[in-house]
């Protein structure tokens, strides 16, 4: 747990050293460059995978709960 927090904190500090200006982000603003490009899409995938795999929260939030999952 501590290692994960340290890793994210370190990456946050490192990433602060680099920047991409607003006027350079035309391509990044297009829908396919978002990790959640359309509403509900990743949610359905996460539901399916978490129902049939023992792991939870892979590539998405949510760590179980909220569903009996049949």
């Amino acid at each position, binding site marked *: 747990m501590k290692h994960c927090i340290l890793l994210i904190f370190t990456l*946050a500090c490192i990433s*602060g050293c680099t*920047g*991409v200006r607003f006027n350079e*982000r035309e391509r990044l*603003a297009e829908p396919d460059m978002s990790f959640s490009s359309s509403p509900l899409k990743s949610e*359905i995938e996460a539901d399916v995978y978490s129902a049939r795999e023992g792991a939870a929260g892979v590539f998405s939030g949510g*760590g*179980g*709960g909220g569903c009996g999952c049949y």
Partner: protein
Amino acid sequence: MLLRNQLAALLTIIFSCHTLAATPSPDELDSLFAARGIIYQQDDNGGNINTNEDATIYEGILLFQKRLNDTNAASIKAVGDIVTAASYDDARDKAETVSAATGYNPGRFNIETRWKYRSSDLNSNRFGFNLHASYGQEYAYRSTGYGFGLSQSLNEESTQLSAQFQYFDDTVRMIRFDGSKETDAPRDTFTSTLSLTQTLSPVSLFDLSWVHSKQTGMLATSFNSVVINLPPNSTQLEIEKAPDLRVRDTLSFRYKHALGKDSVQLGASTYRDDWNLQGHAIEARYFYRIREGRLTFEPSYRFYTQKSADFYAKQFDAVKEYQTSDSDLGNFDGHSAGVLVSYWSSTWLTSQLSNYEIGFNYYQRSDNLDFYWLTLGWYTPL
């Protein structure tokens, strides 16, 4: 390149009645209406050898989000399922026979409300906050959920940090595989998610997330059973039993890179919990875009490998303190491949472009419990 030109020419003919316009850039506070349907089919050719795990699920989701002003938005989401699952139906039918209960409850529903705040665009390093609450009910399960999240952008929004916290106060109806009933049992889940999204260049970015979850209470599936082999040649069915505590951690990394008009997304994730179950996944997606990005083909592949929980076995020689034959907690590898086609087009409902999607995925598990699902999606900015 030849294939791309031929495909583009064909689609130009098909969709020539529409004029081109840029696809809208999504904003998390924008008003929208979205609908999505899924048909899920699971074929039991393996998995848990003691249980029929055939299942068919029809799910529909509606989402309505309204931007209240420059900094606030509210949303409501409704989910409904119709389920035909052999083990689930069997437990339900037996329970209704034993209790003489009447009525038919085929699936589940869930409703969620959410409020989002994000500080004004005038401040380039924006702060965000959200609150949400949900309620869901199935034949043998009830769930009440609460949560909140915080986000902060830095470095002219090149860096996004976010934290999300969720609590589920769930109740399991204790219907056993033989139809007998016990007192309802609680299942509590607390989940925290920390994530970092970093823009690396004008054409690339990554996302790193850590999900930590703690579950307590009734964590077994109440109507699951295990087979105990008794000498010399007989067997006995016993209930599934699991520890009442499960601590779960998942670390995921995704990277996205634009390749001209197209883009590629790669991901890797690792999971472990204190039941000693381990799972590792890798994923690749390609976004093949034509017609100025209005039409996108998204093929994807995902590989998942899992090491079983300590107390998993296909069959047991004696009753154990903890025991499960649930194949979802067993050893297996999973290959999943799919394709999603999405298209932006004008609609009679609004003056904005709407997005239509159709997708198909197939998942093959090494224990022969295979399944596939078809999704249909539509959303429109309002």
